[in-house]
């Protein structure tokens, strides 16, 4: 048989095959080493972002803040930003909103979205070490003396109308409505809301309204006040709460008194707990200010301010009423 290669060439081919085998072994080694190194590196370790935005608030509002944070996070890629939620998981770690603002300025945040739950709190643009202001967007309650790029909040009158519609939805003809108010804070907001609600309920003369102020009594805790009131007024058909804390307190009291279903509760603010109570039919409705949308809007306004130097000073948030039916529909 005629050979394809002379013997010398064939010998070189054998040598070449050996070299290829060795090279293949080296490649496998390099590949496994890279595999090994890649296992040590976080995939996001080198993901560089241009901006850093803080969503800050107190522990009491963490449920609401989480949704605001989700909204802000959902649009963060548009602005090449990282969003971080600053809200202590425990009340023991709770800090004031002012501290968060100082912290935001110190860590070089591109902007801060702060939830203000007391209209008495006066906030201002924080300044960093170089004297540059950090854009601030506030949501929740607003103090006229505060300075910020933009405030996103509910129209109190509109909110009162929505609450009244929720009440008449539960009590179409007659009944007693009890509104729980924390008298130690936010009187103006509460008064405006109650006025708006009363105005709307004028058309329903057989629906009576009452107010439970929980902030004055220094000897009884707020939940005890609520429990006693509910025990003493068995005719109460609907309890309206104007804060997340009051919602949870009332719900707990109703559970304690074993009056679930008998006393209807209209809660305020959607949070994990309120949504859970809603699903369990402990709450009949939850007044929501659409915190996710608030977060998105806050991000848009914040970066508009960074880019153009101004933003919408006052933005009304949408108000919606969550019920068990609407919740099951959306989920």
């Amino acid at each position, binding site marked *: 048989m005629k050979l394809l290669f002379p013997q010398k060439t064939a010998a070189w081919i054998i040598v070449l095959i050996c070299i290829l085998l060795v090279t293949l072994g080296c490649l496998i080694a390099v590949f496994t080493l890279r595999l090994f190194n890649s296992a040590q590196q976080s995939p996001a370790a080198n993901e*560089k972002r241009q901006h*850093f935005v803080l969503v800050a608030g107190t522990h009491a509002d963490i449920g609401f803040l989480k949704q605001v944070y989700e909204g802000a996070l959902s649009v963060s890629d548009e602005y090449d930003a990282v969003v971080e939620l600053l809200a202590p998981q425990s009340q023991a770690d709770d800090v004031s909103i002012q501290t968060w603002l100082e912290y935001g300025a110190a860590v070089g945040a591109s902007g801060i979205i702060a939830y203000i739950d007391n209209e008495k709190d006066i906030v201002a643009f924080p300044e960093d*070490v170089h004297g540059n202001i950090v854009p601030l967007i506030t949501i929740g309650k607003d103090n006229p003396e505060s300075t910020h790029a933009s405030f996103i909040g509910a129209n109190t009158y509109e909110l009162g109308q929505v609450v009244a519609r929720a009440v008449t939805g539960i009590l179409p003809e007659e009944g007693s409505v009890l509104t729980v108010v924390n008298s130690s804070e936010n009187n103006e907001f509460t008064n405006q809301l109650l006025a708006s609600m009363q105005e709307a309920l004028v058309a329903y003369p057989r629906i009576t309204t009452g107010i439970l102020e929980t902030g004055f009594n220094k000897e009884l805790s707020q939940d005890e006040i609520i429990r006693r009131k509910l025990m003493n007024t068995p005719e109460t058909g609907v309890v309206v709460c104007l804060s997340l804390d009051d919602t949870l307190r009332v719900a707990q009291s109703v559970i304690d008194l074993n009056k679930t279903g008998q006393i209807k509760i209209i809660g305020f603010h959607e949070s994990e707990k309120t949504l859970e109570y809603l699903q369990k039919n402990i709450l009949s409705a939850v007044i929501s200010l659409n915190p996710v949308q608030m977060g998105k809007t806050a991000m848009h306004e914040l970066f508009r301010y960074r880019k153009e130097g101004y933003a919408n000073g006052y933005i009304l948030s949408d108000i919606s009423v969550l019920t068990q039916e609407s919740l099951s529909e959306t989920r």
Partner: protein
Amino acid sequence: MKLVESIKTAMNSVSIRRKLLVSFIVASGIMGLIVLYVVLIFGAVVDSVSVSYRTNAKLDAYSALLAQTESSLEQYMELRSFESIDTFDSTRAKLETATQEFTSFPSADEVSLLEYKVYKLVETFVGYADSAVYARRANTIGASDAAYVKAVKAYRFLTDAISQLNNCYFRRNIVQYNASLETVRKISLGCIGFTALIVLLDLILVLILVTNITKPLVEISGVAHRLAERDFDIPLFEIKTQDEVGNICRAFNRMIISIREYIDTIWEKAVQEIELREKEIKMSALYKDAQLKSLQAQINPHFLFNTLNTGAQLAMMEGADKTCFFIEQVADFFRYNIQQIDRDTTLQDELRIVDNYVYIMNVRFGSKFRFEKNITTSNVSVRMPSMILQPLIEDCIRHGLYDLPGGGIIALHIYEQDGYLVITISDNGKGFPPDKREEVLSKTAPSAEIGISSSVDMIADKGIGLYNVIARLRLYFNTPNVFDITANPDGNGTCFVIRIGNV
């Protein structure tokens, strides 16, 4: 296929020593690579574990440096000492240098974001600290205190952030460590599989090589075994390799061929020896038979031979020269007859005894026949069995000319023709019957079984007769064509033809 054939041919041209050396080097190289690979992998594992805890250790050192900076700042703000400002400046510089290792941009990664926060918080802390120091130097107490308060706040944020970062490092390191362990487990499995594959390939290569080397040896062993059992009918090796085994196979082939040739030679010699021995046995038997009969037949001639010598001496004393000559011729004839019966002789001696015999017969029968001798060759020294020609002359006289009243001619011609010495003895007698000729020639053929008894019978019938002559001639010259009986070419009668080759 051609590539494989090329590689096979290249491998065949390599010596076993080199093949073994190369296979050892290749196997060692592969195992060495595997060991190196495993060492690299486990080195990386050790590195990863050490790196996991190195970050925490570095961060602890960084915290210490930060505490030193803050402490020196605090001392300076309280005491305004040179030592404290020197310490502040040096630790501050070190702190800023160390801070450069942190990520300087926001990131979605938790650790990187914390590093970024530390980076910015250090920047804030140092900025406020510098402002406080500058204001303190300028004795602007209000501004100094305000800046210092901010610096302290930043420091608190910083320590919290570092603590978080430390925890984060720790958590990440645990995750990485677990991931590394998982990767190590996978790589270990891969290593085992890879090593097993390579070892398997190595074994296959070695097996092929060893089979390649030992296969001819096994064949050689089998062939040697068959040779040891005297089986020489074995095929030769088809050797393509140029290595030591190839050389052994080629030498084995040559040895087998030599043994076969040697055996053939021995066999031929043995056959020849057997044939010669058989001839000798036959010749000896014939001679003994002939001698026996001759002795029996010639007791009287022997006695007469002695007596004739006495008579020849008496005739010479009385002056009867012719009688004396005759008696001497007769005596010579019988002496030759007795002495030469068991040995060969020359043609010349045969011719002499023929002359003696013819003289005697002429004295006995007178003019009954005439003897003609025509010898055209000088090559009369050729050797031949004794007592050949005289019995043929006798046969002519006794049988050919027996019934002829007179004028019988017996002719002896000796000449060379085509490398043969031809001796013809012819008579003009009644001739040889064809059936008798066939019988004589066939019974004296080499293949014919001429037993002692039959020979004795024939000799008894015809003395040292024609059968004996033909048989001895054929045995002596080892050819059946040495003798023939034909018709006399000069007319009636018989012609005996002896053709001796290679003269």
